[in-house]
């Protein structure tokens, strides 16, 4: 166990074996406390002493240390994140930043809540449980809002695909995401899988959950009504995950440091499934006045946040908490991050009904306290007071830092290192070889090895899922209303220019949602960066936030919430800044959704949007030359918006049969994926410089197929979007005039062999084909 935590006995130093009560703390001001080992700075400790007018008790110190951690308090990011709150008010936003997740009006009385959260550090320490509990945590956030969770997505980053440690981390993470989500009965509808050396010691595991409810069902995390009961329900409290947020998520990994496994939580998706069904039944019967899930910082977080957001105080009798391990100290109980627990505020007259629902679902539920009329959060243990604090100071008034920022010293050189100088393929043979290299690279390759470990079908409402650009879920079987979601986070672009990089990620997610035919409605984010104590990282963070806020303002999209993950670095090397952006869109009728692959011969293939020679941060430069430099593609949000409006019009009018976004790998990647999806080739002409046409990563571009090119042309003219005719679908070859003739069998072999070759070929895959590609009878 981490040093410091082992000091969390009943009392500190000379007081060991004596319960550290509020009364004792007032009498013994000079006792030394292990605040440093718990992640608190000396001035933060001094502030706690000021707030309380005495030294904190051991239990209070535990609470403050976890709640004032970077992970829970957002102390380094808060000053920047305020920008999102300053965006113009959107009519679609029902609940904004500050609650467990934002809530958006999607029409017909439906509200949707969605959020992404990181579980990066735990997933590195213990890949399966880290990833699994990441899914579990975000699902409880969504449930807490009153919504039925309906789908999950995952955005994953690992070190080089062929690095030995990636072979340790990736299979466990994928199995963990799948194992937990599959057991909960939530379809996994998409995400990302990317590799880069910079994530070798800091893989990124970002999980998204989306939930649906009616407007009137929205629940908030607050404790109101004096005399109302505080009920803890779900799993018993154990010794797992103690200090997870302060020790794991808020510190840089030290390559030489001790193993941190005890700080990772262990998940039980079966219990969570029961918790979901019990909660939904409890909501339907209107049995709670407030509810909060127990995630990072466990009971410390849930009780202080509920009390802080409410009107009164709260008293908790810690002896009532059901334990898995009877030797836990009160401080450990308060800090434990045992999974699958929720905390509800229930009127006394409804307690019996509440407990009956829990009994029906075999969910353990215990009254542990009540709402009081004071303004203090108090906790007793064995009849003695061990916590007596103003809850706001724990939950909402933690430290706020205005950290120094400084533009990275290497950025000028990096931007000057333009990929225009790299040797380019010129002969048809070279072009074909580079095309295959990009498509077969770990980033470009078929992701079936991962996605077939996820259940995409459960609940029967999945309309589109990976490899389509966006996940699309039906939310009403009568009206056919549905939602679309995409997650995108290119770290190379953000490394070259974090302001533009964040905007490009937003633009890509926006485009991916639009490609499905949906109207983009709202934004969430998961901001993965290095240590905030390094001014250059803090500059990247500030720039990315500023870029994202500016782009949201221009596109008229609200930011509904988000998550910040800092300290993603090993030693003094931070990851590429990786702002992962999620966009939610709405389909009035999911039956008009547009899939991404070519199905039928004889259709026109059209490119929408303008191609410029832009190779900075491109897949081509990275795959072929191992190069990262120059500037990322230009951001043109007006063009993104026009393209989005055009795609919506084409989708609604049934004018296109497929649409696929151009992003990493440019047209080369998009053409290959479109052809391979259903095994339909094409005969194409590119015009101009074939290298630029294939490998440029200019934004605001989409490739579509249609049986009515004239109608698409006319609509595009109305929208002000350039149309380039590329050719016609058909055959079993992807043929580009004067450039390459790629037989689909050869292309598929290269594209689909990469991940199985790296991470294992199960013997039974032989002769089988991936989901979505079997011709139906």
């Amino acid at each position, binding site marked *: 166990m981490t040093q410091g935590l082992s000091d969390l006995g009943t009392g500190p130093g000379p007081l060991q074996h004596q319960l550290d009560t509020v009364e004792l703390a007032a009498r013994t001001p000079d006792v030394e406390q292990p605040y440093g080992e718990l992640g608190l700075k000396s001035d933060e400790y001094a502030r706690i002493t000021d707030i309380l007018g005495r030294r904190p008790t051991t239990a209070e110190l535990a609470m403050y240390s976890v709640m004032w951690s970077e992970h829970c308090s957002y102390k380094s990011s808060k000053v920047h994140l305020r920008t999102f709150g300053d965006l113009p008010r959107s009519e679609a936003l029902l609940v904004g930043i500050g609650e467990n997740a934002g809530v958006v009006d999607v029409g017909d009385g439906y509200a949707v809540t969605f959020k992404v959260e990181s579980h990066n550090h735990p997933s590195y320490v213990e890949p399966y449980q880290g990833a699994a509990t990441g899914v579990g945590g975000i699902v409880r956030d969504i449930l807490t809002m009153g919504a039925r969770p309906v789908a999950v997505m995952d955005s994953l980053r690992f070190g080089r695909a062929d690095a030995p440690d990636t072979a340790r981390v990736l299979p466990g993470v994928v*199995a963990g995401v*799948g*194992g937990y989500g*599959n*057991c*909960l*009965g939530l379809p996994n509808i998409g995400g990302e899988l990317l590799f880069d050396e910079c994530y070798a010691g800091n893989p990124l595991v970002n999980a998204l959950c989306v939930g649906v409810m009616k407007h009137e069902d929205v629940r908030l995390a607050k404790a109101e009504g004096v005399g109302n009961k505080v009920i803890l329900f779900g799993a018993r409290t154990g010794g797992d995950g103690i200090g997870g947020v302060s020790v794991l998520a808020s510190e840089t990994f030290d390559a030489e440091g001790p193993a941190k496994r005890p700080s990772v939580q262990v998940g*039980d*998706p*079966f*219990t969570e*499934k*029961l918790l979901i069904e019990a909660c939904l039944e409890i909501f339907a019967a209107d049995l709670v006045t407030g509810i909060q899930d127990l995630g990072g910082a466990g009971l410390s977080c849930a009780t202080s946040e509920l009390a802080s957001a409410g009107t009164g105080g709260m008293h908790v009798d810690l002896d009532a908490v059901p334990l898995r391990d009877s030797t836990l100290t009160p401080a450990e109980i308060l800090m434990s991050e045992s999974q699958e627990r929720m905390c509800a505020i229930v009127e006394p007259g409804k307690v019996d009904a509440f407990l009956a629902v829990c009994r029906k*679902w*075999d969910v353990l539920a215990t009254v542990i306290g009540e709402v009081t009329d004071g303004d203090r959060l108090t906790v007793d243990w064995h009849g003695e007071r061990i916590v007596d604090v103003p809850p706001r100071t724990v939950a909402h008034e933690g430290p706020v830092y205005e950290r120094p920022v400084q533009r990275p010293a290497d950025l000028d050189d990096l931007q000057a290192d333009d990929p225009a100088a790299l040797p380019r393929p010129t002969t048809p043979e070279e072009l074909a070889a580079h095309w295959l290299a990009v498509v077969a690279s770990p980033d470009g390759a078929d992701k079936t090895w991962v*996605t*077939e*470990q*996820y*259940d*995409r*079908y*459960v*609940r*029967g*409402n*999945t*309309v589109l899922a990976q490899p389509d650009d966006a996940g699309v879920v*039906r939310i009403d*079987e009568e009206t056919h209303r549905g939602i679309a979601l995409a997650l995108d986070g290119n770290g190379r672009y953000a490394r070259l220019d974090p302001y533009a990089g964040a905007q490009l990620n937003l633009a890509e997610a926006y485009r991916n949602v639009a490609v499905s035919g949906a109207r983009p409605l709202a934004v969430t984010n998961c901001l993965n960066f290095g240590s905030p104590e390094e001014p250059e990282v803090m500059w990247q963070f500030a720039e990315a936030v500023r870029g994202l806020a500016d782009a949201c303002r221009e596109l008229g999209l609200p930011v509904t919430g988000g998550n910040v993950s800092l300290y993603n670095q090993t030693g003094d090397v931070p990851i590429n800044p990786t702002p992962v952006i999620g966009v939610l869109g709405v389909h009035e009728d*999911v*039956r008009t959704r547009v899939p991404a692959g070519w199905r039928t011969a004889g259709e026109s293939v059209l490119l929408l949007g303008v191609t410029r020679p832009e190779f900075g941060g491109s897949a081509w430069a990275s795959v072929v030359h191992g190069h990262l430099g120059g500037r990322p593609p230009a951001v043109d949000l007006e063009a993104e918006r026009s393209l989005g409006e055009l795609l919506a019009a084409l989708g609604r009018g049934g004018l296109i049969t497929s649409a696929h976004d151009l992003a990493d790998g440019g047209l080369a990647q998009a053409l290959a994926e479109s052809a391979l999806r259903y095994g339909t080739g094409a005969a194409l002409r590119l015009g101009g410089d074939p290298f630029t046409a294939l490998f440029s990563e200019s934004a605001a571009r989409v490739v579509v197929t249609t049986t009515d090119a004239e109608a698409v042309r006319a609509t595009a003219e109305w929208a002000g979007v350039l149309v380039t005719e590329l050719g016609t679908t058909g055959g079993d070859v992807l043929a580009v005039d004067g450039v390459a003739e790629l037989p689909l069998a050869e292309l598929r072999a290269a594209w689909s062999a990469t991940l199985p070759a790296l991470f294992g070929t*199960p*013997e*039974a*895959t*032989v*002769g*089988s*084909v*991936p*989901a*979505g*590609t*079997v*011709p*139906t*009878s």
Partner: protein
Amino acid sequence: MRIGVITFPGSLDDVDAARAVRLAEAEPVALWHADHDLKDVDAVVLPGGFSYGDYLRAGAIAARAPLVQDVVDRARQGMPVLGICNGFQVLCEAGLLPGALTRNGHLHFRNRDQALRIERADTAWTQDYEPGQRIVVPVKNGEGRYVAAPADLDRIQGEGRVAVRYVEGNPNGSMRDIAGVTSEDGRVVGLMPHPEHAVEDLTGPSTDGLGFFTSVLKAVVSA
């Protein structure tokens, strides 16, 4: 026509099974594992999921649930029963169907669109198909590898009890490519693939799965 769909703690595809029943124009009736009440249903579906968290063995605890004991009694009198995925595991554990389902050969959970051949088109749940018909429905499981002792496999096969077979690839290492089996009287069928996920063009790889749910309407009428 009332078709019950049992919900156990940890059932996941119960909403899907109920939807499939509805699309087959029958009335889905929600049944609760802990009740001794079959609510006068004409047939029962045990849906997919992870009943009781798959603790002990997949399906082992659910097979001892109060309602499953009632289902076993009624099945022995000829009531049609369909077990899908976890439901198949429950029926094997309850002794209504032969064999057992174990961890996939490759040890991964696998979800894909799977081609199947209908080997028996005369059971209560498959009579709307042609013998030998090829269908495509999703398969998704971590413990779907059908196993039995060689002599039992010979007997099951000899008695024509293999209802559905995997074709064009075996997704989990099931012995003799067995995807589903039937009881001697053809009234009870269990299979690992998910016909309830292939009942709408919008959400499934096909609508090939609907036949299971339309078949039983005739089976009940003719019983």
